[in-house]
């Protein structure tokens, strides 16, 4: 495996993820994780580990954090979010920048405070402590940032925030690894809830940040009036059948790599497959990618096991004024009952150990598709899925998809008929101008 070392600390080049150095923990010395495995700390030169916060000074300085943690979070109504970027002016950008400058540390402080209240045995885990320190240092940099009064100040903020977005892409796999290792130390449900709120909050922060960055770019490019179909400029118009086919192609390729020579099931559409809807492309493609990959993987395993021909995957799309509903119905043998009960949990489940071993192989970036790319430009977020090693089953596709689906007011339901097949229902709320969801929801 080719290893590239980037000499600059803040690399603005987008490195293909398959070529990035494998990272392990960034703690300074080898530590023993709870399972007795030696985990070596190899520091990435491009990313120095944040200095340790483990000191008594940290305890007494926590007052600063508590100040922010005690502030209420100011939700942004989705309507405001959607239509803020319609007519851009300097003041609007500066106003948005100050909002980001204050809101991000507040939201992070809430999550840091959550972590501080988890049992010591959990946060002492090297992965979790890395995440904690990353959060704390990000919080500090944002907190100390002076008030923005000009577009130049805004540029400085944008650079800081871009860097933070990059560095935080590793949070997801680290947290998942940390949770799997510490699953026995705490009530699983409470742990699941903690991760759920951590990831939800993370989505909200990233979406707000990306929105601000996009607006800054638009203003720079002179694109001040935006009456296009993009909602908040972060939501794109997607075509249901097309996006399903794209994700299916990709998922199919991944599965074919593992099950050599096995074809992928045919996709049959029914219903309103021509529908166009607005959603964050990377989020939607991630969910779809996971769902389809599960379906194809199950179909391929079943064919290998029983020799029966592949049954097609039926995709039903239903468009109503308030919701868009997808149903993916396969005949790939269903989900075994010991797995089905913990399907949505990060911490529980018979495969959690297996998942953990696989995670350590993952280059420490895009556990979630498209996060790296979408920061710099709106290119297809599927390239990261392609570059993820194809035999890597992280086992967290469904719980993660659930976080995304529910964040946007939808839901995912899986109905398994063991020995027969699975039906996955994906409901998403529509983000049109008159949408009730838009009126009543905030991020």
């Amino acid at each position, binding site marked *: 495996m080719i290893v590239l070392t980037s000499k600059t600390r803040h690399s603005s080049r987008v490195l293909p993820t398959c070529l990035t150095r494998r990272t392990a923990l960034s703690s300074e010395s080898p530590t023993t994780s709870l399972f007795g495995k030696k985990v070596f700390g190899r520091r990435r030169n491009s990313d120095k580990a944040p200095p340790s916060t483990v000191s008594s000074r940290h305890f007494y300085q926590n007052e600063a954090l508590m100040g922010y943690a005690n502030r209420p979070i100011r939700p942004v109504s989705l309507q405001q979010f959607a239509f803020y970027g319609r007519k851009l002016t300097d003041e609007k950008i500066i106003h948005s920048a100050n909002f980001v400058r204050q809101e991000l540390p507040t939201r992070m402080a809430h999550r840091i405070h959550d972590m501080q209240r988890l049992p010591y045995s959990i946060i002492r885990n090297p992965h979790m402590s890395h995440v904690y320190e990353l959060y704390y240092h990000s919080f500090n940099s944002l907190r100390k940032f002076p008030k923005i009064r000009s577009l130049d100040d805004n540029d400085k903020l944008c650079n800081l925030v871009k860097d933070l977005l990059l560095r935080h892409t590793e949070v997801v796999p680290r947290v998942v690894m940390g949770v799997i290792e510490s699953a026995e130390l705490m009530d699983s449900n409470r742990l699941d809830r903690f991760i759920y709120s951590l990831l939800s909050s993370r989505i909200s922060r990233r979406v707000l940040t990306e929105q601000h960055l996009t607006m800054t770019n638009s203003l720079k490019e002179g694109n001040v009036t935006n009456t296009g179909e993009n909602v908040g400029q972060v939501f794109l118009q997607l075509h249901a059948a097309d996006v399903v086919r794209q994700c299916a192609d990709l998922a199919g390729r991944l599965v074919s790599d593992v099950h050599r020579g096995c074809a992928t099931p045919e996709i049959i559409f029914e*219903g*309103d*497959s*021509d*529908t166009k809807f607005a959603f964050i492309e990377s989020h939607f493609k991630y969910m779809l990618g996971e769902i389809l990959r599960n379906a194809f993987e199950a179909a391929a395993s079943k064919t290998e096991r029983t020799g029966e021909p592949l049954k097609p995957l039926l995709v*039903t799309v*239903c*468009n*109503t*004024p308030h*919701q868009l*509903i997808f*149903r993916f119905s396969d*005949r790939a043998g*269903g989900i075994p*009952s010991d797995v089905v009960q913990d399907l949505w949990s990060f911490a529980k489940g018979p495969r959690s150990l297996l998942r953990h071993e696989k995670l350590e192989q993952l280059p420490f970036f895009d556990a979630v598709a498209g996060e790296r790319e979408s920061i710099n430009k709106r290119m297809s977020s599927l390239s990261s899925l392609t570059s993820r090693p194809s035999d890597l089953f992280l086992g967290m596709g469904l719980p993660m998809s659930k976080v995304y689906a529910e964040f946007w007011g939808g839901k995912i*339901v899986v*109905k398994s*008929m*063991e*020995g*027969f*097949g699975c*039906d996955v*229902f994906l409901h998403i709320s529509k983000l049109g101008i008159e949408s009730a969801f838009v009126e009543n929801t905030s991020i």
Partner: protein
Amino acid sequence: MRYSVCPRRQLLTETGAMVSRRPASQIYKVTCMKSVLGRRRSYSKYSLDEPFFPSIDIEKIISTYAQHHTKRLSLEDLLRFGCPPIPADQLVLNARHIKQEILSSLARRVIALRNLPYIMMLNPNISQIYHKYLNSISFVHGDESFKPENMAADEENREFTKALEKVVDEHTDAIPVLAKGVAESREYISSAMADRFLDEHLRVRVGTRLAAKHHIMLTKQSTSGLQNGRYVGIVDTRLRPDEMVQSVADLLADVSDLQYGLRPTVKIDTGSDIEIEYVSEHLEYIITELLKNCFRATIEHFTGQSSSSHYRVGEKSNSSQGIFGGPTASLPPVLVSISRAPTGIQIRLRDRGGGIKDHHLSKIWGYSESTFEEDDFDDGFKRLNTPPPSVTGTGGSSMGGLGYGLPLSRAYADYFGGNIELESIYGWGTDAYITLQCARND
């Protein structure tokens, strides 16, 4: 000796002490006379027109048996005697066992009914049900003081079975009556309490009737040579779900032809070869109720009568045509998939009926709502929610609901450890998943 059954007096005299205007001494004299004459009382001499055995202390029976908890029957329990004919001594053992179980169920039901608000018990429907339960307890218990010691096993069983049959018959049409009574008392009891009461009541009823009917059938099959090797009591050991679905579908298609002029169809795409051992009545009821919903929804959606019809974007034909030209061809069939699960089977009914709104979904498992408008309230109760046609020979001839079909189906499925779940796509259709715990013949 006939006692008149007068509602008002029944309330006062529910323990059976005083039923007529005759003074107590005379009643006592009457019973004494009977015992003096030494006439053996058999259960069959008493019809339910003579509700009370004066010498039975019903309160004592209720308090004794209410403390005993019934054990839920499993399919293995039902099949444990093997194929009929079953020797009489074993039958009588079963008889004695289920007598205990049934009496304790009935006793607990009486106590639950007594815990309802007083005003509800004055409703004639509920009062009727209540007295049925009291009568049934007396009947099943019988007058043990007159039982001779050396009654032959088969005679004992025969007597008991006759009593059971009467009781089962009495309660066959009880659900519509109870439903009507509860519906009329809506203002005196909260929905949640009503739902809880009905849920418990109907679930217990499922178990009690199961035990009773099974014993009756076992007895019939053992004594009259009616057995055919396939049925063990009420368990069909060679039940084909696909055949059952098809026959229910045919019947319901006839009904909807009468009502709407349309014949919906089913298409069984998997599982035609699956054979199970299960109580056929239960499965028939479940399939009937669910398929009724599927058919009705499909018809209403495709004739534009339901609210979800407006969301059929992308359909080539609009809603105003296609009804009278080739009625069967234009209605999409209900897709039925039957699959083998590790501990039984799963059946999925997938329709294109337009789906169920989210806020309805949470209510459909309760007992208070039906989305069907019935003009004639009384008639509706009679026609609907009757036992499956194979049992009574009559059957529901309407497609609408008391609103009890779904929760009752779930009670049946639950009894042996199964389940029913619904997942809906509003604007398109609904998937119903039935899971049954049973043994398969494969």
